[in-house]
């Protein structure tokens, strides 16, 4: 049942991130947290269109959803943010710098884009049939290296999917205050095929991504997928200056709610409680795990 799989992944991401925010407030996290509350359908729709064994994902500062949709490694993510040796990067990377198998993330806007294109180039040279996916946001379109990469990816016919999660803001700044023209048509002149959709429904994201991925794999040509989405949570912790009425309006359109309508309540409840149990267990495991950089384990 694809609905159940998607719901499970989306609710896991939501539950993990809500717990991360509370862990932060409780003082268990060092640094900062960028959640993708409300954008889970982007991660789940795109990642499930990929071949996890060979395709490459490069994500940005808002990477937890992409990471979980790829790896389902709740333990490793929570331990990483809690600074435990059992984290996916031993606590060194923290929230924005994750790596597991073919998944990578980094906290620099735009800088990851040529790196992902280079990975796609390497896979093309090796003939592995793999493609690379890199995640951008509205704000990333302000970085020059992104355009250098659009040009090269098209010029060299690289198998790379650019995914722009357009949530209307760069941190606190509305897109209209920082970008002239239309982001969704910017790559036309590079000869990069673009598809733009509203993210109401994870199935639509998935089917659109899947057809783009198939096309990229077949023709070894780049493509851009623009996902019009909305971030229900703050940029990082509590730094939200958007109008409450705007957020409320989007809350009623939450893709997670859309998906819930497709599932019987008993199934939803079972999946939800399983996710809560998993997250609680992961937090408990991390509490018991050795603190990275400490000479001894500290009791929870």
């Amino acid at each position, binding site marked *: 049942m694809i609905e159940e799989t998607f719901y499970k992944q989306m609710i896991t991401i939501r539950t993990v991130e809500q717990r991360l925010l509370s862990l932060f407030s409780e003082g268990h996290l060092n640094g900062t947290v960028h959640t993708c509350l409300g954008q889970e359908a982007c991660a789940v729709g795109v990642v499930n269109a990929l071949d996890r064994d060979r395709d490459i994902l490069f994500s940005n500062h808002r990477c937890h959803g992409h990471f979980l949709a790829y790896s389902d490694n709740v333990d490793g993510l929570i331990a990483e943010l809690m600074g435990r040796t059992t984290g996916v990067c031993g606590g060194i990377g923290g929230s924005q710098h994750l*790596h597991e198998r073919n998944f990578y993330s*980094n906290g*620099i806007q735009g800088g990851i884009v040529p790196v992902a294109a*280079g990975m796609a180039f390497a896979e093309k040279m090796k003939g592995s049939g793999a493609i690379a996916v890199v995640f951008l946001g509205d704000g990333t379109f302000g970085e020059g290296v992104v355009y*250098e990469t659009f040009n*090269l990816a098209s010029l060299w016919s690289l198998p790379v999917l650019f995914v722009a999660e357009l949530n209307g803001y760069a941190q606190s700044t509305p897109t209209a205050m920082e970008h002239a023209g239309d982001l969704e048509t910017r790559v036309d002149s590079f000869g990069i095929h673009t598809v733009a959709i509203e993210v109401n429904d994870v199935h639509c994201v998935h089917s659109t991504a899947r057809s783009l991925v198939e096309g990229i794999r077949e023709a070894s040509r780049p493509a851009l997928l623009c996902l019009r989405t909305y971030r229900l949570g703050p940029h990082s912790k509590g730094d939200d200056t958007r109008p409450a009425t705007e957020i409320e309006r989007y809350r009623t359109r939450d893709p997670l709610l859309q998906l819930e309508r497709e599932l019987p309540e008993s199934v939803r409840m079972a999946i939800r409680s399983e996710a809560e149990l998993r997250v609680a267990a992961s937090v408990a495991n991390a509490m018991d795990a050795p603190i990275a950089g400490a000479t001894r384990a500290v009791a929870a």
Partner: protein
Amino acid sequence: MQTVLQSLNGGLKRCFAQDERVVLLGEDVLDPYGGAFKVTAGLSDSYPGRVWTTPISEAAIVGMATGMALRGLLPVAEIMFGDFITLCADQIVNHSAKFRGMYNDQVRVPLVVRTPMGGGRGYGPTHSQSLEKMFLGVPDLTVVAPSLAHDPGELLSHAVLEDEDPVLFIEHKLLYSMPLLTGGGTVRIRRVSEANGYDTVLLMNYAEGTPDVTLITYGGMSRLCAPLLEELAEEEIRVLVALPSSLKPLPLETLAEAAAESRRVVIAEEGTEGFNWGSEVASLLYDRLWGKLDRPITRLATADSILPAAREMEAQALVSADALRNALLEAAA
């Protein structure tokens, strides 16, 4: 007699022949042009599909090469002029040099970024600089610069084929056409192997005994060394020159030993003065040799200013052979 250019070109060709994972990206690197300084001449004809000429996109060149390195290739990125390396700073500092450490040692980035630095050709403020000092403080980045007395092609080949971490490989424009220093005559050469594979070369203008003064320098400054050593030998001034090829990390043991031999040290570099390579070398030598030096360390560098295009003005800004000779004489006195 082989030139530095021939040595580098030969080194690259050996890399391409030995390992098909080696690829090269850069501006104007294809034959028949073969790169602005011709270091890649003949490569693309011999290895089509492995040498890629790029648009003027330095950040993307290094970014893409970093991605290729992460996925198992051995990329060489050529940046046409060292002055343009500032455009790659984010890729070097926040990507290629970060990944291994921040992913907890789970990945490797065997990347080489090659670029020519240096003045003396009248190219003016943005095509003559020695900007490597800006990258010496980047954790997990190795900075290598061959001198006339090294085997530049061998160092490059080591960086490309053997080093599994990112290397910034600094060439000097004035060295390209010069023949390698092979020793014989007045100037003797001794090679010291270093742990990271990038050797240090010692030059001496004497056969026995201890030197009167030790010169520590690197890269393009080596072009001044042999004539100066011959000249000072006639004045019976014994000079030991230490030429590390690894600017960072520093081969500190070798440098400290060379400094201790004469107890009189001059450090020279072509980068601008202040907050530079010599500052770090001097500081570490003071730590090691406190109380064992006969005089304060002398440091020479290019003036802390832009490099003018006009011949006389440029010459006044750069470290000249005269300035170096005077510093050595003063230290030896």
